[in-house]
């Protein structure tokens, strides 16, 4: 029932919103950003979003890594979030990627996304320059103190070079605005310890398409997915089965697409997923440099995986 921005200031501050309700359950799509002639193709972005909503996707993550946030200007990122909020118009949740390895930049983007009317923020750990566990606690509490939206942390050590510990998660879970984490470490010991320690105050979503069913079976609430860019309905169905406790049926869907998931990450994301969408006739354009077109060999492998599940006709 909550509306963005206007009512946040109208009502009595944080108290009127239950920040400890999960931002979403099921499947969220880390949506690709379509480009045409060097610019964001907003008409196409709208079509991609509608394809997602019709498929049962519960939330759209805009400006994630898959959306090539690293190679967009601040103006482009802001415009993309603005467009997304207006186009979606509260049909599903809008989660804006606003993390940075510079705390002040992350604050600027987060407050700007809040002003635009995003429903939640997703913030990656400080990559490249990195920090200590103490630094992670300070960084995220600093940001959480200065926004009025639920925050989903994002742990992806393979890209960032650092990871949270379960103790750090437990500490951050105490902040009313920190809602949970998109976990892409693949470290089930870390995830299990966190879920066991936080007891409903901190939610976990998978950040790896290959981890969905196992992670949901121990209490994860869904996936922030790359795969769902191409098959939104199937990913939504798989997560729904998990939420209903029917892991056997969910695993059948999961395993059917395992090879495709593998091939969607055969080169740096989002190169393969954009290629796959183009092969399906979605016309999302090429990724921006330094990402480049797929190698011929890998393209053949991707096509083969897509044919196997009926996404491309022989």
């Amino acid at each position: 029932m909550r509306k963005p921005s206007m009512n946040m200031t109208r009502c009595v501050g944080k108290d009127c919103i239950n920040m400890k309700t999960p931002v979403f359950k099921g499947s969220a799509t880390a949506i690709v950003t379509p480009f045409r002639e060097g610019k964001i193709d907003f008409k196409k972005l709208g079509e991609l979003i509608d394809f997602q909503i019709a498929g049962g996707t519960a939330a759209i993550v805009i400006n994630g890594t898959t959306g090539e946030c690293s190679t967009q200007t601040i103006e482009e990122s802001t415009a993309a979030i603005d467009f997304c909020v207006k186009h979606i118009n509260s049909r599903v949740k809008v989660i804006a990627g606003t993390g940075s390895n510079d705390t002040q930049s992350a604050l600027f983007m987060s407050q700007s996304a809040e002003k635009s009317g995003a429903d939640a923020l997703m913030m990656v750990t400080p990559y490249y320059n990195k920090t200590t566990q103490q630094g992670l606690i300070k960084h995220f509490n600093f940001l959480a103190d200065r926004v009025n939206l639920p925050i989903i942390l994002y742990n992806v050590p393979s890209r960032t070079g650092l990871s949270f510990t379960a103790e750090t998660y437990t500490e951050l879970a105490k902040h009313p605005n920190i809602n949970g984490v998109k976990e892409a470490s693949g470290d089930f010991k870390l995830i299990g310890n966190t879920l066991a320690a936080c007891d409903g105050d901190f939610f976990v979503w998978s950040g790896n398409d290959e981890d969905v069913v196992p992670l949901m079976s121990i209490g994860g609430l869904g996936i922030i997915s790359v795969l769902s860019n191409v098959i939104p309905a199937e990913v939504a169905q798989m997560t729904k089965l998990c939420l209903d406790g029917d892991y056997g049926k969910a695993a059948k869907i999961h395993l059917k697409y395992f090879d495709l998931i593998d091939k969607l990450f055969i080169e740096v994301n989002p190169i393969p997923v954009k290629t796959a969408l183009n092969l399906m006739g979605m016309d999302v354009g090429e990724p921006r440099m330094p990402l480049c077109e797929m190698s011929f060999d890998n393209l053949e492998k991707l096509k083969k995986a897509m044919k196997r599940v009926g996404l491309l006709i022989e």
Partner: protein
Amino acid sequence: MEQQSKKYKVGIVGATGMVGQRFIAIIANHPWFDVASVAASSKSSGKTYEEAVAGRWMMKDPLPESVRELVVLSAESDIRKIADEVDFIFCAVTMSREETSALEEAFAKAECPVISANSAHRNTPDVPMIIPEINPQHLKIIESQRKRLGVERGFITVKSNCSIQSYVPALHPLREKFGLEKVLVCTYQAISGAGKTFETWPEMIENVIPYIGGDEEKKSEREPLKIWGNLEENSIVPASLPDISAQCVRVAALDGHMAAVHMSLREKTSKENIIGLWREYEGLPQKLNLPSAPRQFLHYFDEQDRPQTKLDCMLENGMAISLGRLREDSQYDYKFIGLSHNTLRGAAGGAVLTAELLCAEGYISGGQKAICASLQ
């Protein structure tokens, strides 16, 4: 927590049923309202709310922490107690028409305002049937209803049938500006309107059933006339026009009622004028900026294939009305498609918006007066 205590205290009567659960879920995140009391049939009374809904909590979000430990009271024998504890109630019970009618009157007579999701009082002449964007002026009838009941604070309001919310909102500004003579409507209604899902109603998969029980078509033809009725001293007198003919069909959609509408206007106008009127239309909830009000009540889509049930029924959190495909017709003046969310705008969400309006307009006292003051 000081702010919490300033909120309006709300009772949910019929709290364990599907609509009651939806009220609980919506109010869990509501800036003005707090659930202070829950009541249900004697089967559940005495249990905690968590125990009473164990195994049948149907909402997507988990059972809100704040209601788990509330002890369920008896809807029928604890009326006085509930009325003393709360500022108003939402009532969504599954009793007979006579029992529901008596129960709601008993609450009103105990000086407790009733916002009803039931149909028992829809035809009572001094009970307003409110779509907040369309007929907020009907709230004035509450004064004469209070006189009839012999109370100062209590009253009953009802919501309309969910089917009409997909076309009456679109017709309303046209009726006001051009006059509306004749309407032919066919509704395509989702299964959640029957309290079902595809798991509990597998016969609906790949199916269409050309019948909806409970006089759905009569309601769809008559209720708009009360919504558009004239406010007279002791009653709301239903409008005589437009003539409405309705057919209601159950389709294999989970949420969202669609309507295919044909209409003839008294004064002829252009397609552009109609679309312009829709896009500009603003009701009192928009002017007051009520928490559950959509920013824009009526959305017109230019795309040929919109609105779609699955794609668009959640527009503005399921509180906006989606319209599309306006074109000239060979038998009537125009035809178009409308869509609304049947369990949000059409049921619990619409009732919560009505409650917000009642608070903002001063018909319900208590709660956080500062919020209401800020709205004026």
